[in-house]
């Protein structure tokens, strides 16, 4: 094994296999994929297609009347200012939450991958938000964000800053939701990064140290590239989750004030489950799907198949 530099192996890039060679792999691939294909096909693909079909109907989910409306639901969606507002709110949330949680998760993971005292306890504490049920978390954050009683504004007041009325101020409510979203995501990112850091061969660091690399250089040129597949994974999944965020908004702001936190997930919930417009909600779901899918594809393109870090 020659390991002159960090390298991530991406099968299929180096040598282009012939069709015959790939075909030969089919039986064994089938073996590995059979449970996945059967289960996802039955319990995910079929329901997803059914809901696509529903998006062309007007249906409340129970009525025997289910008129076909063609593309009306989509047309209505694109001409609704509510939808464009939700889209904007969601994109801001997704971008801010993903980037912040990624950076913090990586910092925490790198710090906790060192040989420091209390490492195990720290890890458990940083993971607690992932475990803490959203209802409890939402309620306590509501207290923390309380304009007069809340810890956050009291702390700010101590530093001479008058804090905003977070959850009732249309220009701050989304910031508050992002903060809680990041809070809940950091531990999750930390775990994935920690698992990946275990895979970094020590020899790389030893080599880098022999070359006289500073800690920052070791991080920048050894750790960061090796974490690239994980970063890619976490970015893709964080965006997928963030585009669908619902429960935090449901517990903390119900989309308000003045629709400033009316993310698409909540918008969809309102139409699907409060207004009983299943056809329209399915159309929302598919527009969301298309959007996330395109974003994901772009990410794959940019990172060449999700195996970033090839030099």
């Amino acid at each position, binding site marked *: 094994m020659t390991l002159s530099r960090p390298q991530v192996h991406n099968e299929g890039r180096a040598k282009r296999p012939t069709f015959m060679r790939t075909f030969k792999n089919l039986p064994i691939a089938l073996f590995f994929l059979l449970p996945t294909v059967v289960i996802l096909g039955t319990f995910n693909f079929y329901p997803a297609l059914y809901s696509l079909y529903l998006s062309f109907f007007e249906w*409340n*989910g*129970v*009525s*025997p*009347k289910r008129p076909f409306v063609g593309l009306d639901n989509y047309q209505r969606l694109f001409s609704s200012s509510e939808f464009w507002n939700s889209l904007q709110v969601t994109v801001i949330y997704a971008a801010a939450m993903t980037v912040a949680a990624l950076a913090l998760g990586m910092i925490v993971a790198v710090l906790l991958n060192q040989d420091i005292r209390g490492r195990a306890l720290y890890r458990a504490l940083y993971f607690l938000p992932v475990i803490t049920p959203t209802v409890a978390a939402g309620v306590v954050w*509501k207290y923390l964000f*309380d*304009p007069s*009683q809340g810890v956050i504004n009291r702390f700010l007041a101590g530093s001479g800053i008058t804090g905003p*009325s977070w*959850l*009732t101020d*249309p220009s701050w409510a989304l910031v508050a939701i992002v903060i809680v979203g990041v809070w809940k995501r950091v531990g999750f990112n930390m775990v994935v990064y920690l698992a990946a850091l275990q895979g970094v061969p020590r020899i790389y660091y030893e080599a880098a140290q022999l070359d006289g690399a500073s800690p920052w250089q070791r991080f920048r040129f050894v750790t960061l590239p090796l974490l690239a597949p994980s970063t890619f994974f976490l970015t893709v999944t964080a965006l997928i989750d963030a585009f669908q965020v619902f429960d935090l908004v449901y517990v903390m*702001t*119900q*989309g*308000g*004030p*003045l*629709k400033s936190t009316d993310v698409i997930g909540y918008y969809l919930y*309102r139409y699907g*489950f*409060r*207004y*009983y417009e299943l056809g329209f909600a399915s159309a929302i779901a598919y527009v969301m799907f298309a959007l996330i899918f395109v974003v994901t594809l772009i990410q794959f393109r940019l990172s060449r198949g999700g195996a970033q870090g090839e030099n």
Partner: protein
Amino acid sequence: MRKYTPTFLAVILFSVFSLSLAQKLTFWHYWDGANGQVLQNLIDQYQEENPGITIEAVFVPGSELVSKLQTAIAGRQTPTMAISDLVAMPFLTSSGALVALDDYISESNVDMSDYFAGPLVYGLRDGKRYSLPVSASNLALFWNKAIFAEAGLDPDTPPETWEELVEMAQIIKEKTGKWGYELFTQGGEGTSWQWQVFLWNKGGDVLSGDLSSPAFNSEAGFEALQFWVDLIDEYEVSTVAPWGLFGRGEAAMVMDGSWMTQFFPMQVNFELGSAVFPYPEGGEIATNMGGEQIFIFNTDPETQQAAWNFIEWFSSTPVQVEWDRGTGFIPIKESVANDSTYIAWVKNARPLLLPFVESMPYANPRPPVTKYPQISDTLANYIVEALYGRMSPQEALNTAAQEAAPLLR
């Protein structure tokens, strides 16, 4: 599906077999905690009186009951009977899966004229009745006696009119620095159904009499919304804040539901009183109303009849008295509200509930239309726009009406 035929056969055989011996009815509800226990006790009593009938009461979390019923109806896996929040009734009757109760009612001892008019507007479709009210709740005023005393007001005299409410609230704000009245400013149903009381107080209504168009953008509506705006901007006795100021002792008065006569005493550390909600001088007493309705799903005539027998029993005055005493729900029938043991119980055990019981004749239903939730949210959104000073009350309500109108067609 061939493979599953034996299972289906077994199910059918089992059903036939069990029918011949005894009848088992399933009943989905969202009555949690003590309320669920009261229901179970009543069911036990019914089963004892009616050997051969088993009723399995299944608790479904309230927030998901409608989703659960929705999937059950779509998959034809419905229970024998269920309850639901009355607002969901127009949606549920649209399924065609419910049994029309008119024939059962006419052949029974159920006296429809004994019911309060409010809850009866739900469960109707094409001239037929598909559900019966089984419980009610409504809104009234709570006040914090400690803050009243601190402000030098008589802790036992709540305001009777809007004008008195403002007057007292201003004294409270001035003397204690606490908020006089807590408004529900976060939109959604909370804002909408509280505001509707103020609208009715002024003599207005949510929709036109035939439910075909919005009516809240009337003079009464403008004045009611102006009053809310004034409470914040003009009198400075209310604020835009997350709900809960009253519970934490930071606001002296609030409008809240009859169920809070159970929760507040458990959760707050001050003495509180309740009163019929104040109305404007020259206006009307009013309150809004919640509660549950019970209904039967289409099955076979025997099962439907058995379910009806239980509902008839459950709706009878003596059982309802027991039910309301156990749960703190507001009576749905006059004979229960006037029942001497019931009144004695309220006066002795739950005096906070008395104003709610007294308010029941003035309880208006929210419009029983399928699109109510969306109309309500729209209305609430624009109320909030006005509270944030982004629109005048007129502009807000007119815009809301414009958006709501197409939903009624």
